[in-house]
């Protein structure tokens, strides 16, 4: 083995670098080759910054600056000036992006004005005109948020506030209705009481203009005579007053007119930065919540006039004893807890798991700034343990938790899924990687978080238990690029020494992602250009190779330095081991998402085998005796033909002409027969006639009924009493009805 290759293999196996053959990457400012195009983010158009829309009219609680700009241009840039306006608008967008990246904060309108005034300096009037026209086409405003460490929590809190606002509005409306209707009951009770019909009250209700027109004492005396006999039960009056007191004292939502009701308790807050605080608050408020939910349920019954002391009293006594189910909790506010994984202590961690497994409407945002920290066990593994990126996977196992995992770069695309999680009736976990730790390596958080998602280090997915009963409808993995592959493949072009363009496909693996973090520099070694040889293979290829004995190939990644010069960097085995673990985890996610599902593939293989065997047998049989086989199959098909199902026929009872009967279903309830003899003819549950008692009348009545029946459905049959007078004539009259 050549010395160079030996040095590479030695580094791969031990991480020990021979300095004369391999360079340290420390201080070289290398970044993955695929990052080369993303050096200056503010020059690019992408989803960020976003506008947290102040008064969203619909579900668009967040809009991207570029999206807003495109929509405004579509409306404002028309005709011959379109191109000029578009160019100016793009320059402004770039300026805003640069300002925000430099730390400017504020509303879109404020930063717009700032950027516009910068651009206007030295520019002609057409610039001002363009920007004014585009600005006029943008109808919304709100805080601008760049893709930084604070953005995920800001975005989620903004969305949560909007959801809570809608809930509060609906709740208040409902509460106002209940209060008004309950008060109406009491008011109606008063109007019907002696006091309500007193001369004084009557006088007050007529108004001053007609005070002398009526004799209110006489009116009161008259009205008092018609006081209702059934007094309004005192217990009901008391109950309604109590309900009104409970409804009025609620603290779950601020009252619509807070200033009008002095002395009312302050509304609760539902935003927390600690799991244990949120849980404690929930437990503490539970009795008040149950009391309010109970009051609302009773109030509904009262208003509908359906509350029955006997039926409901005991049941409502025990209301909420078994806890409340999600539908009962749905009208109340959801709790929001924002925690940072890096600062999550063990006890907080336990509380987080308790929240997630409780089924309570508590939404937790777990912000992860670093997924490349060393594991606490110190075995050199990355911390892919429970502290950060595995929590979402674990939460899925709880089955009833809405889980959203995403890098912050993808969060804007997940905005509707975020909203879905916030409106979901149970607990929700939003696990977001911000990429903020990358700033130490000089990379913007957006790029780092996007790379984490791309490299499968932090795949994006959602698990929505309300979307259906199976994994296919609940689990969503498609947001990741090239979801069928182990690693996404991207085209990469560069110029070689002889100034020729070289294009190749590069897989973006976990190693590329880790290589961008300076803390892992010791696991990498740059190979000087003159030492490049065929023993260096890409990481993805290396992962597919099965190693037996001493490796002859060493995994390497392509990187670029600060001058965008291509470098090759070999990787030690520790990183490869991590990449393999990462790939295995991705495989499990793929299976959950229905990609390369092993159960399906196993079943498919079995069915294919069975099908092939059957085909084989049929072919053999066909070859042996073609005629007999054809006959046999024809016979088989004949015998397999199902007997045509006969349509169900309603059986009518066989009637003898001697028997007296009525075709009851055809009776039109005209009372003719029942008027003749109400004992002989009766009505059934549908008020249709039948012969109730044949012995309750005479044959003459039967015949008379048959004659007078409007729809001719009475059949008198033969007489039961042979001695009835006039039988001969009666039999003749009965003839047409037999």
């Amino acid at each position, binding site marked *: 083995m050549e010395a160079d290759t030996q040095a590479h293999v030695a580094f791969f196996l031990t991480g020990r670098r021979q300095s004369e053959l391999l360079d340290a990457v420390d201080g070289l400012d290398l970044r993955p080759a695929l990052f080369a195009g993303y050096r200056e983010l503010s020059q690019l158009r992408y989803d960020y910054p976003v506008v947290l829309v102040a008064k969203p009219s619909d579900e668009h609680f967040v809009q991207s600056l570029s999206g807003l700009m495109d929509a405004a241009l579509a409306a404002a840039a028309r005709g011959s000036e379109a191109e000029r306006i578009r160019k100016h608008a793009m320059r402004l967008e770039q300026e805003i992006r640069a300002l925000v990246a430099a730390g400017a904060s504020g509303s879109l309108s404020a930063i717009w004005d700032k950027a516009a005034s910068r651009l206007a300096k030295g520019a002609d009037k057409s610039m001002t005109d363009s920007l004014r026209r585009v600005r006029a086409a943008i109808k919304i405003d709100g805080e601008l948020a760049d893709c930084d460490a604070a953005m995920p929590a800001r975005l989620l809190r903004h969305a949560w506030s909007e959801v809570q606002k809608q809930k509060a509005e609906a709740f208040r*409306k409902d509460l*106002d*209705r209940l209060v*008004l209707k309950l008060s109406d009951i009491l008011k109606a009770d008063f109007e019907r009481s002696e006091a309500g019909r007193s001369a004084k009250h009557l006088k007050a209700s007529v108004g001053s203009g007609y005070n002398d027109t009526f004799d209110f004492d006489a009116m009161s005396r008259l009205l008092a005579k018609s006081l209702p006999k059934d007094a309004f039960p005192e217990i009901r009056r008391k109950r309604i007053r109590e309900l009104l007191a409970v409804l009025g004292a609620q603290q779950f939502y601020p009252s619509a007119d807070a200033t009008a009701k002095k002395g009312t308790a302050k509304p609760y807050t539902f935003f927390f930065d600690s799991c244990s605080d949120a849980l404690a608050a929930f437990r503490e408020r539970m009795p008040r919540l149950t009391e309010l*939910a109970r009051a609302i*349920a009773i109030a*509904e*019954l009262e208003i509908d*006039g*359906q*509350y*029955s002391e006997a*039926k*409901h009293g005991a*049941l*409502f006594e025990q*209301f909420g004893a*078994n806890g*409340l*189910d*999600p*539908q*009962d909790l*749905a009208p109340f506010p959801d709790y929001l807890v924002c925690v940072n994984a890096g600062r999550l202590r063990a006890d907080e961690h336990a509380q987080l798991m308790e929240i997630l497994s409780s*089924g309570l409407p508590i939404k937790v945002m777990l912000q992860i700034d670093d997924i490349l920290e060393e594991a606490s066990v110190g075995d050199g593994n990355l911390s892919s343990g429970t502290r950060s990126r595995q929590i979402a996977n674990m939460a899925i196992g709880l089955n*009833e938790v809405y889980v959203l995992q995403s890098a912050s770069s993808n969060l804007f695309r997940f905005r509707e899924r975020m909203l879905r999680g916030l*409106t*979901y*009736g*149970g607990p929700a976990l939003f696990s977001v990687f911000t990429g903020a730790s990358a700033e130490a390596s000089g990379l913007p958080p957006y790029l780092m978080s996007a790379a984490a998602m791309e490299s499968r280090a932090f795949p994006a997915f959602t698990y929505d*238990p*309300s979307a259906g009963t199976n994994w296919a409808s609940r689990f969503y993995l498609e947001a990741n690029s090239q979801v069928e592959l182990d690693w996404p493949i991207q085209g990469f072009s560069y110029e070689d020494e002889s100034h020729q363009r070289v294009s190749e496909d590069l897989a973006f693996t976990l190693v590329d992602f880790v290589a961008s973090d300076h803390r892992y520099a010791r696991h990498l070694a740059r190979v000087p250009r003159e030492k490049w040889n065929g023993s260096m293979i890409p990481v993805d290829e290396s992962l597919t190779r099965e190693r037996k004995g001493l490796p002859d190939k060493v995994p390497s990644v392509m990187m670029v330095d600060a001058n965008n010069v291509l470098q090759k960097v070999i990787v030690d085995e520790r990183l490869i081991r991590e990449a393999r673990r990462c790939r295995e985890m991705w495989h499990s996610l793929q299976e959950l998402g229905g990609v390369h599902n092993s159960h399906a593939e196993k079943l498919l293989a079995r069915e294919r085998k069975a099908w092939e065997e059957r085909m084989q047998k049929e072919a053999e049989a066909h070859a042996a005796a073609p005629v007999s086989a054809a006959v046999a199959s024809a016979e088989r098909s004949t015998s397999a033909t199902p007997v045509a199902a006969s349509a169900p*026929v*309603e059986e*009518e009872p066989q009637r003898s002409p001697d028997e007296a009967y009525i075709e009851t*279903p*055809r*009776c*039109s*309830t*005209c*009372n*003719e027969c029942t*008027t003749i003899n109400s004992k002989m003819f009766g009505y059934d*549950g*549908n*008020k*249709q006639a039948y012969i109730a008692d044949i012995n309750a009348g005479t044959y003459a009545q039967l015949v008379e009924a048959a004659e*007078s029946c*409007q*729809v*001719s459905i009475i059949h008198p049959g033969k007489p039961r009493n042979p001695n009835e007078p006039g039988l001969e004539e009666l039999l003749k009259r009965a003839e047409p009805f037999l």
Partner: protein
Amino acid sequence: MNMMSDTMSATACLLQMADEHFELEDYQSGVPRWCTGCGDNAILAAVQRLCRDEALRPEKTVFVSGIGCSSRFPHYMKTYGFHGIHGRALPVAEGVKMARPDLTVFVNTGDGDCTSIGAAHWIHAIRYNMNLTVFLHDNQIYGLTKKQASPTSPIGTRSNTTPRGSYLEALNPLTVTLGVQNVSFVAQAADWIPEVLFDIVKAAYHHKGLSFVRIIQRCPEWLPKALDPWMHDPNKVQLLHHDDGLQLSTGLSRVYKNQLEHDPMNIDRAREIASGHETIPVGILYRNPAVPCYEDLRYSDKLRTPDLTRAGLNAELDKYTVWPQEAKEKVA
């Protein structure tokens, strides 16, 4: 949105525990004064059956009527009722529905009540398409006042007002209704086919919008033989059926062989069928659930609080107030 949206919450169960079970007798109030053999009895039985099957709460149900034999209907229902004035059943019912959309409102009106003195209200009620179920009890005669010709009396009907027989072709309530804008449900039943009558009453009740059901009924007192040709010859009755309309039972099909498959969404065909002379079409002629209801169009979710009512009244009454000069300035 909810994790268990297909199940019912404990509270919802508690709220439903008060649901009661009703019998036909629970809706019966008093003994009908209609003549023996009168078709109104059949309609009463079908409607009471509907109330029982749908468990309509009597205190949430209103029957509104005008004047005539049929308009005695509310007296025989143990629900709320409004025996109104001649021809004005529909506007009264509309008012009830507007103020109390939570109530189930039925209207019983006769051929004289609806198609003569109440004709203008009828046309506009169809156009307003409020969620009401309207039964036109059509016996083709003024019965309560002892036999005068009504607009639906067939030409040649001898009555106290037309002793030599009526001169005009009868008005066809079906074609008139089908010609009005916003019509959403039109059906025809015959009182002597109770099974279909009940099915139509049920379909009309379930339709959201104004369901207009013309029920051809016998008057055994004043026109005892008028409908005999159709009653005695089942082939003169054409039963309309469709997957989206009525489905006919085997027993019914055995008696009534003249059947026609008709899609209730097809208004042109419905108008054609309604215009026929020889046979009586029985079934759902037209149904369009997409027509908006007036009460929904005018719905306001603003709570009518005493303050709001007072402010509205004051604003209205202030229009007629003669203000002293200084007060007027103050208000301005």
